[in-house]
Each structure stands twice: as C-alpha cells, then as structure tokens.
C-alpha cells in the first residue's frame, strides 16, 4: 500500500466511510419507506450531509455531548445511537430509542451523550452550553457540540448562547450546517452576512468556514476547535457549507430548487463519492474494501427496517408513563 497522506489511519478512514455509508443507507431507505405511508409524522433527511456529522463526531468520546436538530439521524448514527432503536423509533414502535414517545425529531440517547434531536430550531445551543457548564464543573475535558442550520443560525437562542459561551469560556463548538436552505428560503435572502463564521468574531469567538462535503476539511477544523475547547480555550464556530439531497421534509416538492439542482449535486457534490475517490486514488483503501462496507451498511439497514416493522406498538399504558420521575 502507498503512504497515507491523510490525517486518519486506514482503519479510521474505513470507520469514517462506514459511518457515512450507514447514514446514507438509513436516509435513502427512509425516503423509500416514507413514500409508502407507513411512517407517521415528519422526517427530515440528512442525505448529502454525512461528512459533517462524521468528521466532527470522530473526535468525540463518552464524556462529550451533542445537541442535534430536527434533521438529526446523521448526528445520532455518528454518535453511536443504535440503528435498530432509531428505526423502531421512527416507526413509532415500543422498542424505539424513545419507546415510540418521541419520533424522528426527538431521538435521544443520553447514555451515548446524544441530548436529542430537537423540533425547536436553535434550542440546542443553550442546552449545549449547559453541557459545557457540567463538563467544566466536573473537569472531565468534555465538550458540547451544538448543530443548527443556516436558518436556525438566526435564532436569538443561538446568538445569546455564543455570547454566554464566550464570556464563560465554555467548551462548546457551534456548528452551522449551512446547506443553503432554511426550509424553502435561501440563505442569501435570510442572512445578511455571506459566511456565518464572519459573525463569530463579532461575538469574540473564533470562526471558520469549511467545505462541508470534504470529510477531511471538517475533521481537521473540528479537531482543532475541540482540542482547544478541551484545554479550556473556550468556544468556536464551525460553518460547514454543504448540500442536502432531499427536501426540508419528506413530502417537500422542492420546487424552490433549480430543476436539475439535485441531480447536479448528486453528480458533483456527493461527500461520500468524493471521499471514496480520494482514498482510492491515493491507494490507501481499495474499491473492494469500500464495497464490503457498502454491502454491510445496506444489510444493517435492511435488518433495522425489518425488525422495526415487526416490533410491537406502544400500549395505552405507555401514554401515561414517564411524564415525571415521581408525581
């Protein structure tokens, strides 16, 4: 094998690929399943954005916490939430990660540091500051990562949280997943600055913009910020410019996009294809090795869907449980 020019060892390259492939397979399959009408409620798919969640989560351990968005499947998978439990949750089953009580928008697993997908945009930013506060008091070097989109980046909660994290040197990374659209509204319309990272300086926080379809760019920028945060250097803002392949929600006709936009993006800005090309061209990983991962990811998702469909529904008793610890 050739020399490895990448910042990741081969095993980690394969791990990154597996994470991204698993997310992609999960989301593509959900797209198909949702169209059959069997999935209740709203789903918001992360397909096309895999490099962002993956590149960041590779730096995280059990002491770290993630506050996610409504488009949270990618964050959950990258953070290690069980894929079977996630699928069952989306189908509203009792074996779901949230016992069927939360659904796609509220998947959480606090044992894995996943503070929840969140249906309220921007709500995760203060929560991640709270994780930062807890980590500081415990002195465990933990960090809080808050993901939010280009739309939510304009929420007051996000702006307040940036200032709060800055004055208290909280170990928080604010990640703007700038995929160009807040629902159907383009970022150029809704935001006065061209780069969200430009706002960071205004808050006294270091900010960087990267190509969110480049796993290595995300990995390296996130690595620096997380390392600095762990060492007590305070918060940072990481803007990832990226693409979502699907609509805002499943069922979105996407007429706000240019007619060939999705096709072009899949052809030229697919973060998984771009990664695969780079690592195979460098001779570090072979196409055959990647194919194995492809098949394993598909098979895992197949299994997750089958077991979700076969899983039991919650019962009437479940309606009333877990409102309080004790009442």
């Amino acid at each position, binding site marked *: 094998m050739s020399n490895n020019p990448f910042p990741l060892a081969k095993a980690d390259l394969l791990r990154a690929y597996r994470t991204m492939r698993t997310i992609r397979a999960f989301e593509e399959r959900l797209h198909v399943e949702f169209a059959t009408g069997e999935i209740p409620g709203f789903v918001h798919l992360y397909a096309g954005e895999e490099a962002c969640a993956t590149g960041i989560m590779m730096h995280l351990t059990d002491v770290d916490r993630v506050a996610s968005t409504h488009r949270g499947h990618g964050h959950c998978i990258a953070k290690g939430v069980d894929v079977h439990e996630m699928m069952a949750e989306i189908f509203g089953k009792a074996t779901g990660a949230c016992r069927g009580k939360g659904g796609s928008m509220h998947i959480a697993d606090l044992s894995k540091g996943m503070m929840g997908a969140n249906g309220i945009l921007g709500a995760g930013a203060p929560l991640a500051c709270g994780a930062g506060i*807890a*980590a500081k008091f415990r002195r465990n070097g933990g960090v809080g990562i808050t993901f939010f989109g280009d739309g939510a980046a304009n929420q007051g909660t996000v702006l307040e949280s940036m200032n709060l994290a800055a004055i208290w040197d909280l170990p928080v990374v604010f990640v703007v997943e700038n995929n160009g659209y807040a629902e159907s509204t383009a970022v150029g319309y809704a935001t006065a600055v061209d780069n969200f990272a430009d706002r960071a300086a205004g808050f006294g926080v270091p900010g960087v913009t990267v190509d969110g379809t480049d796993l290595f760019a995300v990995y390296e920028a996130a690595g620096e910020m997380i390392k600095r945060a762990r060492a007590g250097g305070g918060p940072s803002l990481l803007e990832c410019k990226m693409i979502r392949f699907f609509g805002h929600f499943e069922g979105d006709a996407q007429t706000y996009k240019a007619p060939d936009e999705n096709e072009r993006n899949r052809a030229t800005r697919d973060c998984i294809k771009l990664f695969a090309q780079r690592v195979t061209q460098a001779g570090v990983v072979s196409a055959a090795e990647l194919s194995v991962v492809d098949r394993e990811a598909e098979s895992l998702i197949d299994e997750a869907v089958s077991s979700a469909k076969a899983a039991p529904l919650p019962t009437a008793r479940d309606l009333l449980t877990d409102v309080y610890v004790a009442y």
Partner: protein
Amino acid sequence: MARKISFKQAINEALDLEMRRDPSVIVLGEDTAGGAGAAGERDAWGGPLGVTKGLYPKHGDRVMDTPLSESAYIGAAIGAAACGMRPVAELMFLDFMGVCFDQILNQAAKFKYMFGGKATTPVVIRAMVGAGFRAAAQHSQMLTPIFTHVPGLKVVCPSNAYDAKGLLIQSIRDDDPVIFCEHKNLYNLETEVPAESYAIPFAEAYVAREGKDVTIVGYGLMVHRALEAANKLAKNGIEAEVIDLRTLSPIDLDTVIESVESTGRLVAVDEANPRCSIAADIVASVTEKAFGALKAAPQMVTAPHTPVPFSPVLEDLYIPSADAIVGAVSKTRKPAMAA
C-alpha cells in the same frame, strides 16, 4: 430550634444548605451576586431584592452571574440538569418567561417523556411573582396557571418563610423541573423557621385554619388575605377553614375535597387573572368530584381580566381583598336557587 426569619432569608438558607450538602447544586441568574466585572463590591446585590446575598462569598464559582440572556442561561441550566447537575436558575420575574419559554415548555418539561423516560432534568427555576409592589404590568403577574397547565413541570408557591425553606429544599432535591414562585410581597414576612435542613413534600396542602362553615382555598399571598377574611367572618359567627395549597402541580385536591365534604361550601381565591386560573381549576375539579357535598355554588375570587395597573389606588383594587373573599363567602350562604 425555632427563631423568626423572613421569607427571603429562608430562601437564602435553603440555597446555602443545599449547596453545602450537594456539590452539583449551582445557582445562576442576573445579578445573583452582583458587581460582576465591576470595580466595586462583588456580591453587591444578591439578586434584585437581596435574596441571594452572601452566597457568592461562600460558594464562589458555583454562583454564576449571567448576561441578559434568559434563553441562553435558563436553557443552559436545563442542559446542565440533563447532564446530571442540579442548577437553580433565577428567572428574576416570572413575567420574563416570554423570553425563554421554549426552553421551559418544549425542552425541560418534555425531555423525560419524549425521550422515552431516559432523561432526567432536575432543574429549579426560581422567579418572583405577584402584585402590590407598584411594579406595574410587566413585573407583577401571577402566571402560575400557565406553568401548572404544562405536563412535565412542577409548580410551587409558598405562603410563608417556613414553607419557603422546606419547599425549596424539596424542589432542589426533586428530580423533575420545578418552577419555584416567590411572592415578592412576602419577602419580608417573618415566621418561625428551624435552622436545620428539612424538606416539605409536594402535594401536601396545609390547613392554615380549621373551620366548619366554609372552605377557602388559596396559595401565596392569598392565604394571608383568606386568613384576614376568616377573622372578619368569625366576628359574625362564621368559621372558615383556610387551606394553603403550597404546590399547584402536583396539587393536593384530596385535602380540599375532604374539607368541602365537611363544610359544603367552597371559595377559591387566586391572584391570577380569572380565565383558566387555579381557582377555576379547583372549582371545576371539586364540582366534578364532590358535587353531592356542595350546598351552594362554588365561588371564585380572582384578579380581574386586566393587566396589573400601576397607580397604587388601582393596583390595590386589582389584588383580591379580604372583603372580596368575605363577599364570596356570603354568596355561598344564600339559598342554592337564589341568584
């Protein structure tokens, strides 16, 4: 060992005792100590009315003065609770809930349920409530009904220093999100309070006065108005039973129903505005569950359906008075068919 201290001193003691007992208890709020970053005294204020004064010198960086960012710091307190700490965040005036309500309503209240039981959010949000301070419409409301309505929240509103200390200690130890309401007009009221630590369970109403002729139910400042009314009624030979709810969620309806089964007459007093008030909630529940015991239509005595006015003469009309309560009791003594 009993000695008299004020309601606000009792709150200060509760916080101090719990912070000494449990290192995961932290206190956050605007000017909670005061003087942060300034040239003069640190711990200059101890909160706007001095309730938390003295905590910063004792507990240092566990007392955190925040910027003017309720969404961020109330949310951060909630996030820290979800990560295992026990934050006590001060939302200076409960009227300010508007600027951070999502974090309370859609985050803290719902984590346990939405996440299938797998989250615990032991946060306490302390806030001043109530009128009489001439602080006008945006600093004087009794918004307890709004929080009581939300599943997943607990709501506490003590009427005296003894209850304040015991209920705040209980709130901090409780594993659910608690909205701890402190009536600003009761802050200087002194009661006998033990120096040691003690916790008062939720959903245990207190019978502040026994009586056989009518049941008067209230919380916070209204308990005192009800007791005043009871004294006036006693001069006319009417013995009122006064029940202090102490906690609105969970609520002790059993004590109220037991009393109504004995007196047959109910007057619910509430400083909140009338629609969807705690008074309306009590009357509806008692009517539904103990209709047969009632000898007369239950009465509600509440603030009017208006914001809180500024001019003292108007504010004093806004707050339910002892005379209004006496008037309501009189209505329960008219024959059931009469208007």
